[in-house]
């Protein structure tokens, strides 16, 4: 029972991290329909930004965090302006490949600049965990969970509740029609990509201190993020959040009660099972025939 509770707590904490990974990608992949292979690189970027801010620049943790998010926003905007804008209207696979190219460049650049050695970001939270009975949870991870929840709520409100969010959704469903409604389509493209990138960077900045920071940290994160977004249903922020928790539960209990060697396999099997049962993800968009 104790072990079960600890697994449950772990899964919640991990789920928060996964949800965080997912929401940035839902914007870019789920809403913009760009298969964003730079997601992992942007996540890594956020973590390194946090590292620089809190070590080289000596910023306070809670100042470094927004700094990194803004840095991600800027990098995202730059990528959109230089790589995606000229390719507007190109095939989805073409943009995907350009994103792969950009991802390779970013990752190798990071390796070149920072070397391959993992870096640790100091955290302002006590090392000793919060212990409730037999269950322990680290303060830092608790903070990440809360921050993840806040970012998810923010992203949700922004996409579903604001004029800008509505314009974003409209633009990627029919950009000509959106232009006819008075939407500055070019700005929306840049803004959406930048926003998704800043969320990816936020994930990196928050999870960097939890884990360690190294150039390839984004690879696994990106695969999981894709899985989470699709599990939740394209373009659904609630879906991405829920998908993150489902994946975390599957992995945690798969490793705990089946076999740790098949830990990741559990997650992937759940995804396969969900998609076979509900081929459009948990939060499907309504479609019709004819």
């Amino acid at each position: 029972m104790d072990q079960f509770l600890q697994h449950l707590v772990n899964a919640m904490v991990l789920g928060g991290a996964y949800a965080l990974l997912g929401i940035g990608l839902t914007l870019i992949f789920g809403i913009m329909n760009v298969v964003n292979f730079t997601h992992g690189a942007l996540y890594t970027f956020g973590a390194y930004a946090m590292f620089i801010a809190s070590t080289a620049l000596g910023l306070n943790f809670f100042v470094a965090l927004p700094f990194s998010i803004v840095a991600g926003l800027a990098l995202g905007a730059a990528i959109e302006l230089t790589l995606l804008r000229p390719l507007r209207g190109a095939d989805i696979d073409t943009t995907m490949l350009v994103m792969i190219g950009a991802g390779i460049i970013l990752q190798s650049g990071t390796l070149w600049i920072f070397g391959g050695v993992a870096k640790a970001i100091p955290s302002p939270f006590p090392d000793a965990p919060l212990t409730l009975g037999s269950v322990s949870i680290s303060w830092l991870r608790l903070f990440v969970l809360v921050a993840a929840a806040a970012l998810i709520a923010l992203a949700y409100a922004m996409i579903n509740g604001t004029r800008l969010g509505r314009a974003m959704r409209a633009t990627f469903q029919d950009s000509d029609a959106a232009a006819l409604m008075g939407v500055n389509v070019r700005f929306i493209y840049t803004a959406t990509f930048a926003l998704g990138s800043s969320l990816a960077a936020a994930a990196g900045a928050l999870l960097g201190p939890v884990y360690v920071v190294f150039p390839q940290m984004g690879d696994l994160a990106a695969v999981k993020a894709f899985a989470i977004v699709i599990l939740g249903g394209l373009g659904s922020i609630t879906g991405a959040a829920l998908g993150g928790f489902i994946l975390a539960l599957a992995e945690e209990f798969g490793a705990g009660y089946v076999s740790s060697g098949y830990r990741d396999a559990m997650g992937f099997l759940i995804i396969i099972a969900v998609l076979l049962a509900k081929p459009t993800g948990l939060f499907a968009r309504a479609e019709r025939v004819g």
Partner: protein
Amino acid sequence: MLEIRNLECGYGPVSALKGVSLDVGKGELVALIGANGAGKSTTLRAISGLVKARAGTIRFEGQDITGVDPAEVLAAGIAHCPEGRRVFPYMSVADNLAMGAYLRRDPIRVREDFDRVYSDFPRLAERRRQAAGTLSGGEQQMLAIGRALMSRPKLVMFDEPSLGLAPRIVEQTLGIISGIRDAGATVLLVEQNAFAALEICDHAYLIETGRVVKRGTGADLLADPNVREAYLGG
């Protein structure tokens, strides 16, 4: 109010408009008729900035709007209800209408316009929360018309608004369109249902393969035997 001179447009190597000139006066309802592929939709797209003019000028209320972005054309007061409905499929009916009022900053009057659209098309009111892409073809058409009206334009351009609508709704829609004119706004109407368009318009242009070949009052064109032969089914 709207003056177009020698407008030329195309798609890649295809030249769709080969020098179109037309005038729409304030408060008028002007119809544009012509065969499939004549260039009617292209004319509207050029006005709203979706396709760029290769030559010629478009002036609206004395101001040159040639080559201006769609958003600015709308801001200047021209709304365009495009061919083929073009609703936002994954957004609700209400959100689609809200998009129509995207540039407006007068929430109270926007509310009124919501109510007006809902009372014009009660079916939309029933389906406020339904994803637009799952509406029936005609329901989507109603939504597209309602959405265009949400911006309170000075000039509305309708591209085949009756497409896919049931006869009773066609009737009603044409009524709404004349109503817009009667309320003081200006209308540029493209219709395949030339008969109906010519009946309600003040004057009309006939376009063939990218050129204006005839202009006159609706009654003139209705009476023209060539027009009857080609566009009204004899």
